[in-house]
């Protein structure tokens, strides 16, 4: 009965979404003051999807094998937390989670948004409902998560063991919250384009959503990168895999939007531009969802053989993006450009930021979709990998990072002061770093070398907005910006150090043998069998030392029974100046074992930088909310005083 209740809730929610969509037209054409019922409908619709998703969690938690989805993706013997996480570790469940977050976001807007006019709000809720409607149709027609099996099987087919990891269990929800948070920016942009009310009020209503989505995307990408690093056992942190690019593209667009939205909020300028970015940002979320969920990445042929889902998603993508662009072309030209600005100004700096991010987004987009396009058109197979992305996006990212130091120093509207003089010290330190890398590592590649230069310079340049004023009196949002920009420098230095100074050792070791990697001496003690709840493994015991003290590492090679799969569990030891990364391979006929060892100096800075960027976003968010509360309180007191 639980599965049926979930399905019924979904149908009801779909009906309400259709009603909401109709209301939008009535409101926009007639100005019918439908805001009040619209808010209630949006809230009920959000609650219904949450109920449906809760039902799915229950059938997964109970291992109810009569539900087809549970049978295909779960098994009675796996740990409870992965039973629950299994609910979104598959196609149907993750699409249900997607639409749940989408509708819940709509409900949240309906409950709390007071900043836009009621007309724009109704139009935005209508747009949000239109988005939800497409995905309800997709679930109910092409991917019903609640379908039953008869007779009910005794046990399920299990879950991909690579996914049975705490990092990955909570990775998709984080990314989805980020993806779908951008849907609110999209809907608000569509709503404002319909009513013509594109102004700084709209930007202020949109900003917390964009900021929140951006924080979660940053966290999701950082966590995903660390997951790939330790779980795949290849020692890399970013593979330019299409699935990774699917999360990077919305992040790039959201980063651009986050910056242009500040211009709209503070100066009322860049109206059409910001609306365009809001549309692009969510379009990238949908492109990402399409790439991951359509099966097109496995093969264009797989896509062609089972085309229903992929085609459905592609059609949704085309309809929403197409409609938004048509709306933009129709209404965008009527928007009045806001306050003018000079060539050297904060606004111009942010425009340059946006242009560079757009170019990076463009090359990542083309590189990701080109192989699919070529295969679909000519049948020829090719792959675009790290060499392309590093060569094309790497230099652009460095230029962008160099400019990050300048933008925040510029004044709004017109900058007359000699700003570059403030950058003398950081630039000088950067050049010193460059000279040092040339002296100590003459053979280093150009990209890491420039990474060190720009990274060191940006460490100093990013904190300049807090220098020469009392840092304690600077707004929290300024602190957030400084922290995020500082985080970019930190991550850049981590990437450069990893690229330039990693030592690797790959060899067969007999028990008792010592291998050297970087400053470390690693001794293979023993290899023993071990087991967990649903896996068996061989585990090596390694003793590592670099002079004083011994650390023990235990890398495993695990074998899962359902489905039969092997995974390698790397053992990583973190030190203040880097990580020792060890992987056990296959046994050798001589009685030894293959071992792969890395010493990665300062590699942790990559993820520390990512965390700082997200933390900066969180500080900015906190600052904005705090200021809003204070203003509301002040307003309430003012009214009290007036009417008392």
């Amino acid at each position, binding site marked *: 009965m639980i599965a049926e209740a979930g399905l019924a809730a979904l149908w009801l929610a779909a009906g309400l979404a259709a009603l909401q969509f109709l209301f939008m037209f009535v409101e926009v054409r007639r100005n019918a003051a439908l805001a009040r019922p619209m808010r209630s409908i949006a809230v009920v619709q959000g609650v219904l999807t949450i109920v449906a998703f809760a039902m799915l969690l229950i059938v997964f938690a109970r291992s109810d094998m009569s539900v087809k989805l549970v049978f295909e993706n779960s098994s009675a013997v796996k740990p409870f937390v992965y039973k629950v996480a299994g609910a979104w570790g598959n196609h149907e469940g993750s699409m249900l989670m997607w639409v749940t977050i989408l509708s819940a976001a709509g409900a949240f807007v309906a409950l709390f948004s007071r900043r836009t006019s009621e007309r724009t709000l109704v139009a935005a809720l209508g747009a949000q409902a239109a988005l939800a409607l497409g995905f309800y149709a997709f679930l109910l027609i092409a991917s019903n998560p609640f379908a039953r099996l008869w007779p009910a099987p005794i046990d399920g087919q299990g879950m991909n063991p690579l996914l049975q990891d705490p990092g990955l269990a909570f990775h998709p929800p984080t990314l989805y919250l980020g993806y779908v948070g951008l849907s609110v920016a999209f809907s608000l942009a569509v709503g404002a384009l319909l009513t013509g009310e594109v102004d700084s009020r709209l930007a202020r209503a949109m900003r917390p959503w964009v900021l929140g989505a951006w924080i979660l995307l940053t966290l999701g990408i950082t966590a995903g990168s660390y997951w790939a690093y330790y779980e795949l056992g290849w020692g890399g942190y970013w593979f330019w895999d299409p699935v990774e690019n699917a999360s990077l593209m919305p992040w790039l667009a959201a980063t651009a939007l986050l910056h242009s939205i500040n211009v709209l909020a503070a100066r009322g300028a860049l109206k059409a531009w910001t609306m365009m970015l809001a549309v692009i940002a969510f379009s990238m979320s949908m492109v990402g969802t399409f790439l991951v969920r359509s099966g097109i990445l496995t093969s264009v042929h797989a896509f062609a053989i089972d085309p229903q889902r992929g085609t459905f998603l592609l059609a949704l993508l085309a309809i929403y993006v197409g409609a938004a662009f048509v709306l933009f072309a129709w209404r965008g030209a009527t928007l009045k450009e806001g306050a003018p600005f000079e060539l050297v100004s904060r606004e111009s700096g942010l425009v340059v930021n946006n242009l560079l991010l757009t170019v990076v987004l*463009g090359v990542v987009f*083309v590189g990701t979709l080109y192989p699919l396009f070529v295969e679909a058109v000519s049948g020829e197979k*090719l792959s675009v990998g790290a060499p392309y992305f590093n060569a094309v996006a790497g230099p*652009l990212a460095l230029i962008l990072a160099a400019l990050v130091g300048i933008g925040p120093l510029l004044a709004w509207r017109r900058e007359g002061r000699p700003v570059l003089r403030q950058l003398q010290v950081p630039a000088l330190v950067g050049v010193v770093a460059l000279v040092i890398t040339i002296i100590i590592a003459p053979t280093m590649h150009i990209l890491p070398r420039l990474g060190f230069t720009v990274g060191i310079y940006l460490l100093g340049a990013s904190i300049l907005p807090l220098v020469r004023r009392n840092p304690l009196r600077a707004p929290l949002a300024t602190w957030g910006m400084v922290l995020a920009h500082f985080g970019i420098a930190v991550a850049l230095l981590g990437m450069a150090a990893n690229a330039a100074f990693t030592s690797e050792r*790959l060899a067969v070791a007999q028990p008792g043998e010592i291998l050297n990697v970087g400053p470390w001496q690693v001794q293979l003690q023993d290899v023993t069998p071990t087991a967990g709840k649903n896996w068996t493994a061989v585990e090596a015991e390694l003793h590592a030392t670099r002079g004083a003290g011994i650390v023990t590492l235990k890398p495993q090679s695990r074998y899962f029974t359902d489905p039969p799969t092997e995974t390698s569990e790397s053992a990583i030891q973190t030190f203040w100046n880097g990580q020792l990364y060890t*992987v056990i391979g296959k046994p050798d006929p001589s009685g030894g074992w293959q071992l792969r060892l890395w010493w990665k100096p300062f590699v942790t800075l990559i993820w520390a930088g990512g965390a700082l960027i997200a933390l900066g976003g969180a500080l900015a968010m906190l600052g904005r909310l705090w200021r809003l509360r204070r203003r509301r309180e002040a307003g309430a007191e003012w009214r009290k005083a007036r009417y008392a």
Partner: protein
Amino acid sequence: MKPKNQRLVLVSAAIVAVLVAVLLAMWGLRNQASYFYTPADIAAGKAHDGEAMRLGGMVERGSIRRAPDGVTIRFTVTDGKAQTPVLFRGIVPDLFREGSGAVAEGRLEHGTFVADTILAKHDERYMPPQLGNLAAEHRAGKTLEK
């Protein structure tokens, strides 16, 4: 700047940015996109030495040889029509075995494919994307032989 000029400048800047992105991407793709070849393609001389590429096929039975260092292997990839010798240094994926499908990433050096990475099917249900057809053809071939 007048608002009207400002809009003109912004629109042209956006167009230039998109053009730059496309040109950059095209330039990068011309140099860096790696094509997928089968041993038959290589035998026919379609691939050039030093070019980044992927090689796909079945690992020929009885062809895997280990070097004395224990981490370097040589094997032959076949598509039923031709064979290409492959050299790889590293830990092979868990499901890499003789008679099953594999895709190697790397470059040709004097007729030997030097692989940087080997992708094998990483669980029993998974097939390297580019091998989907090949495996189907392979199975079809077997049925015909019977």
